[in-house]
């Protein structure tokens, strides 16, 4: 009987792909948002399978928790007209479909023929410690830059959303 790993993988894969398709194909923007939430949860599950527990947690927290919710709020804010028809196809749907299929085919072929050269080794004992050592060791510049990035993003987002208050002369 296939071991538990494989079963979980196929379940989670089906969940992710199914809900992703739903996000794309449904006409109601709210349903899409909800299915997006489901996709993120599915992906978190996959991370767990890949021994990236911390990452799964972060995924759940930020993606599923923050981003999906944020999107739902945004959808509520810009609701106009009939919500059921709020997310129709654009004029380029068919060509987009073709392009994505061809792209998928290309990547699939590329990956299929690729003989991945890697080495077998046990995952590090405390993944969290090595993660932290990386963040503050090798990638400290990236870390700091990320901090500033978040700062400017927040400042910018608030600015733009606040819009023109009569306060400034």
């Amino acid at each position, binding site marked *: 009987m296939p071991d538990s790993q494989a079963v979980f993988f196929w379940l989670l894969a089906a969940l992710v792909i199914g809900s992703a398709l739903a996000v794309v194909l449904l006409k109601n923007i709210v349903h899409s948002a909800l299915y997006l939430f489901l996709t993120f949860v599915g992906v978190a599950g996959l991370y767990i399978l890949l021994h990236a527990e911390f990452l799964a947690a972060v995924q759940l927290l930020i993606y599923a928790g923050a981003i999906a919710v944020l999107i739902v709020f945004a959808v509520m804010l810009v609701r106009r007209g009939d919500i059921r028809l709020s997310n129709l196809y654009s*004029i380029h749907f068919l060509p*987009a479909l073709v392009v*994505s299929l*061809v*792209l998928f085919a*290309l990547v699939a*072929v590329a990956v299929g023929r690729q003989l991945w050269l890697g080495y077998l080794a046990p995952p590090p004992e405390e993944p969290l410690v090595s993660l932290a050592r990386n963040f503050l060791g090798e990638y400290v510049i990236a870390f700091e830059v990320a901090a500033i990035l978040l700062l400017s993003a927040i400042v910018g987002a608030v600015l733009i959303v606040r819009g023109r208050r009569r306060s400034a002369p």
Partner: protein
Amino acid sequence: MANLYWIPKAWLIPLLPALAFPFIAFITRKARGLSALTAILAIGVSLVISLGVLWEVIAHGITMDNPVEYSTVWLQIPQLLKIEAGLLIDPLSAVMLLVVTLVAFLVEIYSIGYMEDDPGFSVFFAYLSLFGASMLGLVLANNYFMIYFFWELVGLCSYLLIGFWYHRAEAARAGFKAFVVNRLADFGFLLGFFFLFIIFHTFNFRELAAAIPAYHNVGLLTVAALLVFTGPIGKSAQFPLHVWLPDAMEGPTPVSALIHAATMVAAGVYLLARAYVLFASLPNVMLVVAYVGGFTAIFAATIAIAQRDIKRILAYSTISQLGYMVMAMGVGSMTAGIFHLTTHAFFKALLFLAAGSVIHALHEQDIFRMGGLYKDMKVTTVTFIIGALALAGIPPFAGFWSKDEILAAAYHNGFLGLYILGTLVAFLTAFYMFRLIFITFFGERRAGLHGHESPPVMTIPLGILALLSIFAGFVGTPFTARGFSTFVYYAAPHEVEPDYMVMALSTLVALAGIALAWWLYGRPSDLPERLKESYRWAYNLLWNKFYIDEFYLWIYRRIFWGLAEAFHWHDRHVVDGLWDGVGDVTRASGQKLRYLQTGNLQTYALVFFTAVVVIALWMAGMGGMIR
């Protein structure tokens, strides 16, 4: 050449009038008297030096074979080209110097009277000085380059003087026509001596004279000779480039006298004489020269019969006489040609100046509107008749001896046809000259006509020229020992033995011409009218100068101008269209491509990803990845 005094000063002859030109043009322009004086003084001194030169040429026995030559290098390109500015003094140039300076001197004096009430008085004298300088320069030149140099300058002066009264449109047009026709001839002349240069690597006459006989390739030499001959055809108004001379009569009469009768038009004949070795060594070229000369003579003489304008008649007579000289060259007697040139210079200048004084008095040029002038203008009439007699070739006048020598030469050298033609021309010349005399001087007085004699300043030159027309001939008569033929000759001096038959026949023919003229025009009769009616076509043909002018105009306007218009159209539409077209295509493509930018964000994204996919497929295909 021990103690030559005058000849070393020969370079002053052209230089003095040359300096007079800027002097008058810029300094003494306002003072009319001073300008005239400067011009006359300049040409006078040149005349004196020319006389000195002639005297030393005779005294020191400088002959055609060993002339005196001074030359300095004007422009030198090592081993390739040496252009020198030099003087060649030999009997031929000495004679020409005398003729040119003398006639110019007399004409300038005459002009004081003729041009006195003309606003451009001093400018006229400036131009005359410039003409004198360039004509004398041409005569003294010792190489083809220098002759061409002054050849064109002389052409310029004739252009300026023909178009002197530029307020008259016809004068401007005549000047334009003269210059263009001369330019056409000069183009041929230039090519001619280019050919000589690439064969012999020199322009110098004496070096060429030494080299040409030894040269074997007759074909190329013939081409060169014919091309050089186009120069004289243009300058001496031979057929077919004669059309400009009759129109040149638009210029003031002293100009016609000096330039278009005596000197400049003779430059062509002078060139033939100077380059005679080139023609003499090519028999078939000589034939061409002879027949061109002959045909021009008869052709011009016939037209002269039907003309009404006094200056036009004299113009055609000049063309006819020039044809005589060229024929003389063609038949082999250079001496006869130059001798006729000299005598012709005097009596033709006389005729023009006399006609000038008639025009000056009556302000009228159409002979049928004049009559009976002999009563008021005694001196002009007498001098005119002397000139006419000399021109017609009545002994003992100068014209008779020189024309007789040409006819004798033609007869003796076996050109029987040309001899008969020459005699016929003599008859026609006599006829149209005395037709003119009987109508203007002896016909009945037109109403309201009052001629008055010209002032002495004009009549004195007439007198001098009349004397010359009478006695100039004795220099070269067959009877005088060591005459003209021993002085100016080609190859060897030769004594001319008299040929009574030719002399008698030509005199007889001239008298017949005069008689016919008297019979038709001397006494009142309607015969000329009836003749004109019966032979209407012939009269029209002659009156319209065989429609050659119209033919040339047709070529100029239809073919030449048409081609130019075609080029213009081609330039504006085809070539310009092509390049502007390229510009428009770029701009249009910019316009079209602009609309790719639809503004829709997803179009951009679609293009982005399609490009990625296309590149991936192309790179994969190129790299032979798939399949």
